Structures are given as structure tokens and as C-alpha cells.
């Protein structure tokens, strides 16, 4: 047990567990983002649901605990991806095949996980500056105060909805978010089942199932984020 992280499978276990944990986070994130579009459905005024959601995420003690864990998840996933990639490049050797690689039937995503990861990480940097830094008060912004229904009462808080709405009125930003979402979808289409494969939860029966679930997860998350950004640009 002690030297698990010095072994190849141990390091991959870290990639797998951190990756699957980050997928859980993405689902929570997507759930709250869906509030951006759902005010009309539940009969709230525009932005009330999302502002209540942001207020909940900003004040709930459980979220405060899970936030650093989430940050560690990202850091572990990124650092170990770099360590493993460097090792793999070394194991592969300097000599490339002159006749190239003509192996057919391999997923595009599985061969480009690092590139997709770099695209997602670059997007993430912009995304954090756009929203997280402002909502957490690291970057000053003109926050209007709004009222919204919260746990049966009317609560007051920052108008995060206006920030999101204004950000998604800029076309280049929407395009960037769609690109980030698509990269994320491809990353997940391989990452999901690969994560389960690494922890050993796979066999001939489960391989097609996990790949299918992975594709659904990828489309839900990647498509979800992209659709929300586009809908905000077009209809709100």
C-alpha cells in the first residue's frame, strides 16, 4: 500500500479517481447552470433561480469544505497528467515511425487527451477570471443587489445573474465557451470509461455499457454547457 503511488497503475488510479470526482463536480455545476434557463418554467422572475443558487453555493458550509477538495482534485489531475505524459514520451522513445501510424478504429479523444486537457485548462483560466474571481470578490465588479426567494424567505444578494447574462452577450466569449464545452465532451467521452477501466471496474460485458454511459455523460455535460451559453446569448 505504501508505495502505491510509485507504480504506474497507482499513478493512473489518481488520474482516474480525480477525473471521476471532477465529473461529479461538473454535474453539480451543470445543474446550477441550468437555473439560468429555467426561471420561466417555474414561474420566477428572470435570474431569481440562478441568484438563489449562487447564494446557496456561496453560503453553504458543506460547499466551503468541498471547495478546497475540488481544487486539489484539479491540481492532482493536471500534475499527474503531466508526469504520466512525460514518462510515456520517454517510454515511447525519440524515434518516430517513418511510415506513420495507420492503426484504424481508435477513438480520436483517446489519443489526444492531453491536448484536449490543455484546451480545457486554458478555457478554465478564462472562465475563472470571468466569473469565479468576481463572485468570490477577488476582482472588483459592479454588483447590483437583488432580492430572490431562498428557502421560503426573500433573501438579498449580489446579482450574479446579470454578470453571467452580460458576459454571454459577447459573441467571442460565447464561442470560446462552446469550444471549451466541445473539448470537454471529447475529453469525457474517453475519460469516463477509461477511469472505470483503471480502477478495474470493467470486463467484456461492461466495456460497451461504460462506453455508452460515457458518451451520454459527455453529450449531457459538454452539450449542456454549450447550449446554456448559446441560449443566454440568443434568448435572454
Amino acid at each position: 500500500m505504501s508505495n502505491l503511488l510509485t507504480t504506474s497503475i497507482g499513478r493512473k488510479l489518481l488520474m482516474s479517481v480525480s477525473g471521476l470526482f471532477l465529473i461529479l463536480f461538473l454535474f453539480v455545476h451543470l445543474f446550477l447552470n441550468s437555473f439560468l434557463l429555467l426561471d420561466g418554467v417555474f414561474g420566477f422572475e428572470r435570474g431569481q433561480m440562478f441568484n438563489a443558487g449562487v447564494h446557496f453555493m456561496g453560503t453553504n458550509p458543506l460547499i466551503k469544505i468541498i471547495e478546497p477538495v475540488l481544487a486539489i482534485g484539479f491540481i492532482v489531475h493536471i500534475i499527474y497528467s503531466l508526469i504520466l505524459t512525460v514518462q510515456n514520451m520517454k517510454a515511447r522513445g525519440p524515434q518516430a515511425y517513418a511510415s506513420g501510424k495507420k492503426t484504424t478504429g481508435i477513438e480520436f479523444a483517446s489519443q489526444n487527451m492531453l491536448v484536449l486537457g490543455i484546451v480545457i485548462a486554458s478555457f478554465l483560466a478564462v472562465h475563472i477570471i470571468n466569473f469565479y474571481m468576481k463572485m468570490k470578490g477577488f476582482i472588483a465588479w459592479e454588483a447590483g443587489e437583488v432580492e430572490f426567494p431562498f428557502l421560503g424567505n426573500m433573501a438579498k444578494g449580489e446579482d450574479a445573474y446579470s454578470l453571467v447574462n452580460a458576459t454571454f452577450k459577447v459573441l467571442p466569449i460565447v464561442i470560446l465557451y462552446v469550444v471549451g464545452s466541445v473539448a470537454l465532451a471529447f475529453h469525457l467521452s474517453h475519460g469516463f470509461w477509461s477511469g472505470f477501466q483503471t480502477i478495474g471496474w470493467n470486463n467484456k460485458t461492461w466495456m460497451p455499457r461504460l462506453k455508452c454511459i460515457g458518451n451520454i455523460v459527455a453529450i449531457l455535460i459538454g452539450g449542456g454547457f454549450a447550449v446554456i451559453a448559446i441560449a443566454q446569448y440568443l434568448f435572454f
Partner: protein
Amino acid sequence: MEKTINLTLKVWRQNGPREKGRFETYKVSNISIDSSFLEMMDILNEQLISENKEPVAFDHDCREGICGMCSLYINGRPHGPDDDVTTCQLHMRKFQDGQTVTIEPWRSAAFPVIKDLIVNRSAFDQIIAAGGYVSVSTGGVPDANAIPIPKVDADESMDAASCIGCGACVAACKNGSAMLFVSAKVSHLALLPQGRVEGARRAKAMVAKMDELGFGNCTNTGACEVECPKNISLSNIARLNREFLSAKLKD
């Protein structure tokens, strides 16, 4: 009348492990499409010898696809353009008249070139020596029906055991990983009661040796499974992960 083809061959030549290699171009003509790829290589070598040149060194032994000795990375694929065959089983009818065929050795840091197209695959032997066997003293041969084994397990074990250790998985892998090979060797024993006894120790020892020898980390890309001449399944890698992690957890 039998059909013949003419080919241009781009062959990797390297005098020794520390020498710099280069491609040399040769022409072979009147190759029967019914001959195997290695027979074509033999014809090339006869030709080179008659010209007083050094023949191309390449690995081969049984020439019927069961020994795992032949290798060769042909036109972008280990064991050439056909599926589920080794190079010795590859027919020349898979090539067109006038085609240029590029022939390279396996490329992987753990498989250094010895000469021309021959690479040193003793790393695989070392991994097997680390634990790919059953060491329990079983005494006399027990009655075949004394230990019932589910047919499904027996089949899966036999499928894994069909790995001939040719190294095509490592050659095809963008990470130079030997996980498909190691997983096949761990699986065919782990699925049967005789091999099960040492399962934990075996998984740990073989993975440790694999890491030590400088093979890469698996990213489940699956190129190995596609190029494996024996169709070893990627699900074996999940079993190896399972065996290894549960063995580690028990420590």
C-alpha cells in the same frame, strides 16, 4: 499462371545497437502473391547476398504464427496491413504491384534495436520471470474433474493465454506501454484455480518489473488491441488493474 508483383522496399538498416540507422531502398521483382511476407524478405536477402551485400537481419522462427518471434512494422502497422495475423502469416496478396513498402523495427525505449529490424525483447522475458508462472508444487497430475472450472473462465483464460509475446502491443502504443502483454499473462493464470493462489504476488511483481524496465503508462487508447495478432482483449487490462490494486490494498 500465378500472379507476381514487383515492390520497392524501404528497409531500416542499423549496424548495431549504438550505430545510427538509416533507410535503404531495394527493389524486388516477381514476388508471388501466394508467398508470405517473410518469404519475400528471404528473396530480398538472397538477392543481397548474390550482390555481395549484407542481408537484412530480421527475427523469425516458426513461421506459422505461434512462436511470437517475428515482428516488423510494415507501412504504419505492426505485423502489416492484415488483421489478426503475425508478419509470417501475412500474404503478399495484401500488397499491390509497384507499391512502396516501408519496413521498420518495433520502436520503443524498452525494445532497443540490436541490428536492422531486430529489437531486443528480453524485457518481456524479464517480466515473465518476475512472476508469470505457477510455482506451487502440485505433485502428480490431479484428475481433470477434481476442480470444476466454469467454461466461461476457461475460455477467457485460453483467450488470454494465446498471447505469443511478440510485442506488437508495445510497438503500436503511443505510450510504449506493455499493459496488454502483462495483463494477458496475469489474466490467463488468475482465471484458473492453480494460478489464482499466487495471483496477488504475481500482479505486483510483474507490474513492478514492467515499470522498472521503462514501459509507459496505459491510457486505454486501444491501439494494442487492434494490432494484436492474437486478438487479446482490452478487458484484460481492467483485470490486471483490479488484481494489482486489490493486491496492493491488502498489503
